[in-house]
């Protein structure tokens, strides 16, 4: 899945960003390091400046997105559609809308992830190793959705230099985890220097093995925000498999139903 980041055109200090739930988790760090305004910079910012600007513009008060996920594996393709609601950094709700999954929900609160299935009487609470479960057989795990700390709280970030990704100039950054309990102890990310969208990310395990790759295949400016609307994720530990994640509709500062992120509402 792609890190989906929306940037507003600069309006004083009102630059804001939104991440899709998956991206929030998986790639929030990398993607949001560079909340930027087109042409706003003339010199390479320091990492601290980049992080500071990103932190300032990381989260939308609320957002509603529609998305489609296509999982490709040895047996063919699996299409899943969903609506994603998010509020700040800590709350995300995914409601699946495709025929087979209709009614199923994933709720991410500040500390936990809950799964709701209409055929089950109880909610499934994911924690620990259970978070490594694949989400609907995709290359995205629930672990990618977990964590609510800021990047600087979680990672040491180093600017490695400048690079090109598909002809676009990028900053290349290395993220090294400060803690052991993160999904990806090390990441290398490439961020578009002009649009401040992450175009590529490689994620590594503690042993140094690359375990996931993410590429942003399409970047669009929607309502003033730069958004990676098409992304491809490849879990390198799974053979013959990759996942495409496409955001089809975005509504920022959407009016969300009251209590939508509560456990009580989850099973309704």
């Amino acid at each position, binding site marked *: 899945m792609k890190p989906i980041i929306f940037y507003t055109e600069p309006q004083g200090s009102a630059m804001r960003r939104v991440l899709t739930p998956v991206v929030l988790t998986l790639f929030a760090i990398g993607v949001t390091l560079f909340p930027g305004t087109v042409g706003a910079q003339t010199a390479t910012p320091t990492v601290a400046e980049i992080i500071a600007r990103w932190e300032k513009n990381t989260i939308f008060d609320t957002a509603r997105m529609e998305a489609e996920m296509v999982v490709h594996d040895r047996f063919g393709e699996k299409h899943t559609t969903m609506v994603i609601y998010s509020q700040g950094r800590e709350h995300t709700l995914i409601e699946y809308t495709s025929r087979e999954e209709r009614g199923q929900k994933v709720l991410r609160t500040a500390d936990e992830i809950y799964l709701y*299935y209409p*055929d*089950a*009487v109880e909610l499934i609470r994911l924690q*620990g190793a*259970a978070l490594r479960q694949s989400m609907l057989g995709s290359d995205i795990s629930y672990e990618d959705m977990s964590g609510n700390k800021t990047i600087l709280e979680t990672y040491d970030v180093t600017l490695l230099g400048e690079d090109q990704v598909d002809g676009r100039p990028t900053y290349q950054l290395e993220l090294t985890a400060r803690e052991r309990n993160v999904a990806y102890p090390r990441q290398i990310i490439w961020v578009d220097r002009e649009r401040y969208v992450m175009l590529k990310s490689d994620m590594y395990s503690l042993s140094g093995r690359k375990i996931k790759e993410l590429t942003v295949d399409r970047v669009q400016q929607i309502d003033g925000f730069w958004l990676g609307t098409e992304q491809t994720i490849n879990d390198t530990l799974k053979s013959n498999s990759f996942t495409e994640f496409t955001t089809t509709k975005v509504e920022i500062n959407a009016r969300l139903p009251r209590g939508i992120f509560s456990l009580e509402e989850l099973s309704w």
Partner: protein
Amino acid sequence: MKLITVAWRNVGRNRRRTALSLGAIAVAALSIVFLFAYIAGMKADIVSNLINYYTGEVRLRHKDFEAFERFNPLHLRVQDAAETVQALSALDEVSAVSPRLSFPGAIFRDEQTLGLQGLGLDFDRERAYQDLSAILLSGTLPDEATPEGRRIPAAVGRALADRLDLEIGDDFTVLATTMSRGNNAMTFEVTGLLEFPVGSLNGTTFIAPLQDIQRLVRMDDAVTDILIKSTPGYTPEETAIAVAAATARLPAAKDLITEPWTEIDTAYSMVSIAETVYGFVALFFFVLGSTVIINTIVMTIFERKQEIGTLAAMGMAPRELQRLFFYEAGIMSFLGSALGVLAGMAVVYPFSVYGLDLRAAMGDIDFQMSGIIYPQITLGSTVLVLVYSTVVALVAAYPAVRKVTKVEPVEALRGT
């Protein structure tokens, strides 16, 4: 006097040494009788488990399922299961049909993910297929219970229930991958505990109504396997031919494969290979036992040198002397073998009734064999051991017997 009578009397002349010789052969024969009885029990047990839980006498499934089984390929399925089962049930060669849907699932407890195996059964048809009540340890089978709310009744393997800390009346929610590789979860209520004969089934498996499992994994009227039992008088191969002909008319026939259990790679073929290996082990045992007879014959020839010289001087031909000692070896071999076989049968009998309990040693090993094995004495293997041990002992003793012809009568009478 006949040589055989003389040989019989000679065998009794040194009873202690004869008893030692007989004992050596008898111990070897006893061991092999037990070994063969145990293997026969294992084979019968595996066949029973294969037919009831794994392959049936004949199995109908998607031709590619086995190749991709580790990926849980539920889409490689038998479609239109109800119609197919009905068509197969009408065949003369078929006595019972069991449609089944097997799937892996997961339960999340605290920070742990616990794997388990679900099995959807059509309980009406399953009762005709096998006696499920024989493995029901406590409670009721799922189709005899009506849990409250949306809970689905399920009977759980005893060891699985222990692992999940479940008792009758408790709930558990299983997350499964659907046929199209999505996810779904369902909450089950434990209505009964099962004691599967196979340890790995006991520690991983629960059973529930087929239509509920089909709903869980979104498979509509499809199953992973259809297991078939033959009408008595028909071999699995004959039934497989009839089943293949009947299913050839189905729209998805080209995707299906019909196999008799004898052609499916199972633990049975491993045990059959092991049986051949054990045949060589038996040969080794008997040769080892025969060394005592060889020793006895050599010592007898040495001790009875003067007697041999006398017999030769009185005109007994060397070949007759050979036959005399050969008869003595034969009597000891046969008696030792017969004693060993009888003792073996006596040892096997209580195990054949009460079983040999290896559950603690086997644990949850994924092998299609029960934790308790009932060794079986078969006429064929018993006669085989008797003949086999006698012949091996005689063949082993023959070179020693030939030494008797090398005794010179004059030197023997001189006592040199």
